[in-house]
């Protein structure tokens, strides 16, 4: 069975108003720009977006923010888009800030069937407020619940038609963990090959995690985001 999707509209068929959506990427690097573009075209709102950043000003998830489709953002570094602070001050969005290691580990836990975990990160800081504290082997930890989403939109380099994924350099970042932690996982990729063309040794995300693959048409280049095809 091929998981190949025809276009962005088909890829986002399962996305509904009020959904929680994970979006891969570290800023625009490794962000699924084609799928984000499709999301800006789709008539949905009140989305909770889990992503390290909410894009950059007017780019990536920044466009979705401008459309007021985001109800809440969960991430570690909203500073990269000044529009996020402005929207927050106007009361248009809620934000939940997590240390980057906690964000990524909570997603990993969510994908691995773990309800939550204790971490040292954040102990004694403002981000530990109202979090359960526990001493383990003489050191203080705080409890962090796992995170899951309805849909994960991710970016990889190559896929085979089964949905096995290979990533490219630092565009990998949050994508492999998000691939494990949502009910529906859609990956956009630069290249789609037949099963057998990827070495089993190089596959980072095995196909069981992936529901659909889409050929990317929005590509990050040294000159910015360009549209192909």
């Amino acid at each position, binding site marked *: 069975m091929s998981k190949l999707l025809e276009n962005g509209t088909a890829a986002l068929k399962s996305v509904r108003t009020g959904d929680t959506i994970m979006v891969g990427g570290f800023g625009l690097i490794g962000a699924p720009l084609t799928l984000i573009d499709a999301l800006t075209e789709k008539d949905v709102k009140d989305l909770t977006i889990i992503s*390290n950043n909410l894009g950059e000003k007017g780019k990536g998830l920044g466009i979705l923010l401008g459309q007021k489709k985001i109800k809440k953002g969960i991430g570690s570094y909203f500073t990269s888009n000044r529009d996020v602070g402005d929207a927050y001050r106007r009361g248009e969005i809620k934000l939940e*800030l997590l240390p*980057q*290691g906690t964000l990524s580990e909570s997603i990993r836990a969510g994908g691995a069937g773990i309800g939550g975990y204790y971490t040292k990160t954040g102990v004694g800081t*403002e981000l530990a407020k109202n979090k359960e504290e526990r001493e383990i082997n003489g050191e203080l930890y705080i409890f962090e619940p796992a995170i899951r989403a309805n849909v994960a939109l991710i970016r990889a380099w190559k896929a085979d038609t089964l949905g096995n994924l290979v990533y490219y350099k*630092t565009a990998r970042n949050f994508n492999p963990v998000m691939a494990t932690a949502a009910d529906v996982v859609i990956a956009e990729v630069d290249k789609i090959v037949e099963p057998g063309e990827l070495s089993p040794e190089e596959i980072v995300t095995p196909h069981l995690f992936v529901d659909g693959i889409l050929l990317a048409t929005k590509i990050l280049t040294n000159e910015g985001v360009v549209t192909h095809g």
Partner: protein
Amino acid sequence: MANEIQESIASRAAKELNGPCVVNLGIGIPTLVAKYIDDQQVYFHTENGLLGVTDVDEEHQDPNLVNAGKLPVGETLGASFFNSAESFGMIRGGHVDVAILGVLQMDQTGKIANWAVPGKNIMGVGGAMDLLVGAKKVIITTTHTAKDGSSKLLKECTFPITSTRIVDMIITELAVFEVKEKQLELVELMPGATLDEVREKTEAVFSVSLKQDHLEEGI
């Protein structure tokens, strides 16, 4: 562009890195440290998923190969890529030997504040809290004073702290401090700096224990 003060702090910090070791560099002055290292066994880690960071010239820049400051970088021979959860597992799990970080403020016990300013909305924390709890050694590189001239080395931080973890060393354009039993100890004056100037620009209480070669320079 980096100025002379930033470069002098970075070059001094570089002397603290002796391979083999794995080092994570924060944004700002810490990023400058790498260019003063020619030890092939100092391996740079960046939390967005690369062990083996190196410089890249303009014509070889790849938009998908960046450091945590989203600046273009290169990869060394023997470099590896990994996902964010694994990267922070390396950090929290104590597999990174040294983190070099900037600060907004630090207190006289060695706690730092480098992620939020009171009265402004808290918008970003990134990997700062993880690096502080996980790195085996934390070196702070910072200008001695803030832009308004006030000391960054305070009795108590007025900004929210990043961690309860005590850092190991502080390097400014005026002085090098070590933190011993939650107390600052001035161990070195930077070229051109005097003890009087350090005292004048430091609110935090510190002891002085200059190494012999600095005493001989007649400060």
